[in-house]
Structure formats: C-alpha cells, structure tokens
C-alpha cells in the first residue's frame, strides 16, 4: 500500500465521536476515507464551514462550496457557514478538537515546521500557524523520510510553524508521541523493524515499554 494511505488509515483511528476536526491539504485529506463507521465527527474547514462532507456525486459541484484547497465539497444537513474571522476564532479560541496537518520536519521537542523552505519553496503559512497554535490536539501526518532524508530530526532546520508541542506524529513506519521527556516511539509498522525506524530517524527516540505493532 502507498505510504500515504497507510498514514491516513492509522490517523483515522484517532478520531473520536463528536469531535470537531480540521484536516489539512494532502495526506490529511485522505483520512476521511478511513473513518470507522461508528465514529461521527464534524469537519471544519478554515474557509468558513462546519459540516463539510465529500462531494456526494459528480455533477453536484457548487461554485461557492469548496474546501481550503479550493476543491468542490458537499455539506451535511445542519451545516453552517461563516466568515474567516469567526472561522479562525473557532480555531484559535480552543473550539477545534483536532487538526491533522502535513509536515516537513518535526523535532525532539515536538516542534513542527511545515510552511517554508528558505530559498526554495515559500508557499506561506496559510492557516497552519493558527491551527497548530489553537487546536486542542495536533496530529502530524507525514512520510517518515523525504528522498531518504529523515524528517523527524533533533532540531528543526526549517522555520517553525509554532512553538506548541504537537501531540502525535503518524508516519508509514511508526507512531510517535512527543512528550516533555522527548519523542516516545509507541507503534511500529508490521512492514519494518525497530532498526529500520531508528535508522530513518535523526531524533533520539524513547522506546515505549508498551511498544505495539501499528494496525493498518
């Protein structure tokens, strides 16, 4: 299975009934397809909607109903739309239970960098800084390495998105929980060994006494 689907499937298990959830662009968007049937959550999108759903079928696109990536979406009965000030008030004000975001680097302190590569790629932070600063729980969904280079590093070399410690890192190889003591390795994919994970990670990992096999 493509790494991004493994990551999305594992992240989906973190969603809890009744949560208000914001999914970032890229791998996080795929999480929608793997949510367990008994779990009902509400999706918020920073462009101003609660109750967003995937587009129910082709042909039902509405030019004024899109997600934060400008893709056409649907809305559930009972959905609500609002302006950007309220949308970010929801995010910063502690009303958003969970955000899932992509990442370029996460370091030993659990700091995320995901908005620019100086001199190379400067897309801008969009809503990422507000989401990481304000959401009750932040999950980073990203591949473990990029072009063989570790993305989980001792100290981020890229500009940080926030100094808030993220709550969980999910990759195709492992599930890692940043804590005060450092990065705790909680789960390993059945496809890889502990040695593989350590080799692909620059940061020091604290191996959990209760190390599990990742369910994917």
């Amino acid at each position: 299975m493509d790494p991004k689907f493994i990551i999305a499937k594992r992240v989906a298990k973190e969603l809890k009934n009744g949560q208000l959830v914001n999914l970032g662009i890229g791998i996080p968007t795929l999480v929608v397809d793997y949510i367990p049937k008994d779990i009902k959550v509400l999706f918020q999108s920073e462009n101003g909607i609660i109750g967003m759903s995937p587009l129910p079928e082709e042909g039902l696109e509405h030019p004024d109903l899109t997600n934060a990536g400008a893709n056409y979406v649907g809305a559930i009965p009972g959905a609500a739309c609002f302006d950007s000030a309220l949308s970010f008030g929801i995010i910063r004000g502690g009303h958003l239970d969970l955000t899932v975001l992509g990442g370029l680097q996460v370091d030993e302190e659990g700091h995320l960098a995901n908005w620019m590569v100086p001199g190379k790629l400067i897309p801008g932070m969009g809503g990422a800084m507000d989401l990481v600063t304000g959401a009750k729980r932040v999950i980073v969904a990203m591949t473990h390495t990029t072009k063989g280079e570790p993305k989980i590093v001792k100290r981020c070399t890229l500009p940080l998105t926030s100094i808030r410690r993220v709550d969980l890192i999910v990759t195709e190889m492992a599930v890692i929980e940043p804590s005060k003591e450092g990065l705790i390795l909680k789960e390993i994919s059945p496809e890889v060994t502990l040695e593989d994970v350590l080799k692909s990670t620059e940061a020091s990992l604290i191996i959990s006494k209760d190390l599990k096999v990742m369910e994917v």
Partner: protein
Amino acid sequence: MIRNLDFIRYIIFKNSENETSKNKEEEIAVRLLNVEEAIKMIPDGAIVMIGGFLGVGSPNTLIDEIIKQKRSNLTIIANDTAFPDKGVGKIIVNKLAKKVIVSHIGTNPETQKQMIERFLEVELVPQGTLVEKIRAGGLGLGGILTPTGVGTIIAEDKQIMNIEGKDYMLELPLKADFAIIKAKRSDCNGNLVYSLTARNFNPIMATAASTVIAEVEEILPVGTISPDEVHTPGIFIDYIVKSR
C-alpha cells in the same frame, strides 16, 4: 450614512407591470455603477483589499476590469494569490501589483517568480492574524494580541506581551483605500448576503476601506431581504456593481 457625496441616484424599483404604480415609482439611493466607472475610481498605486479564498468568492467582474484598465502599482491585501487564471492571481500574472499582503502564495507560481525577481514584494501573514488585522482596521481597534506565531521567525520584529501568563504578539490594524468584495445578492440599500464558503474575507474587508465596491449577482428591492438575514449592513457599501 453615505460616505461618498458624489453618489449616483438610480431608479431601481418600479413596478412597471402595473399601470397605476407609475405614480408610485420609488427612487432609491443606491450607488449602482457599471464596472467601467467603478474601476475608474481606483488610481494607480492604490491599496486594494480583494475578497475571496483561492478565487472562491472573488469579485471577478471587477478584477477583469482592473486588468482591462491596467490599474498598476497596486498594493493588494487578500487571503492568497489564488491561481494564475483565477481571482487575484490574474492581477499578479498581469504584473499590476507591486506588493501583496497575503497568507498563502503556494497555488500561484507566478507570485513566487515575481518575488524572486524582486518585482513583487510579498508580506506573508498567518490567515487568522490577517483577518483580525483587517477587522481591527475596520472596527476601530488599535491592534490585536494573538498567540499565533509567537516564538517563530514572524515574531522577530513584533512586540510580545504576556497576559495572564501567556505570550501574545501585537499585530497592528490594516486599512485600504478600496475594498472590492463579492456577495450573492444585495438590496438597493447595499445590504449584502453571501453564499456558502464564498463569504470568507468579504464581510470583514467591507468594514476596512475608505471606499467599498460590492459586486453582486442579484440586486433586489429594499425590504426583500429580512433584517435577520443581512450579513453586511448596507452602510458599509459605497457602490454596487452587477456581476457579468
């Protein structure tokens, strides 16, 4: 409150189907303009807020006219620079902006290209901070305190204030010479209703510019939009232009 004294009076609502109503023709002061006249008001070098989120909810008729009339050296305040062929993106591609204040440029490669060539100055602001800066500008606040960005490179030249044990960053208000925004419908007094996620920055920008031009798809008689349904009260709107 009508801020522009040179407003144009138009006869909007007349029930021409009914002969007897001719005497009751109602003259209402909305400042309805055609798109050419509207954009003629904007001088080169103006600071212009433009509504929309990646082109959704952007005033496309007005944007196309800015390009047609080649209004140049603009400072654009918007959420993003959209795509090269959509919304604000078209202004960038036509090299009519000298500066943009936005949260995201990743979907428009032309923005980054002009930034590297030093043709275009790009100021990146977190999206939630950007909208609050505009809100502060429009609603009489001296600034806002936000936790977003504290400890990152964007805080380097910012004043940090500790409030009840938590650090916040002072962000100053943003205002503009013009705001061009998009709504679904308007009544003849400029009361606006937006559609779904096309609302985004539009109602906030409507408060923060000296002259506000709203592009709308329909213009309705006064009284047909319930007071509870009005998203932006007409007092904020100086001119209305109909979408093409």
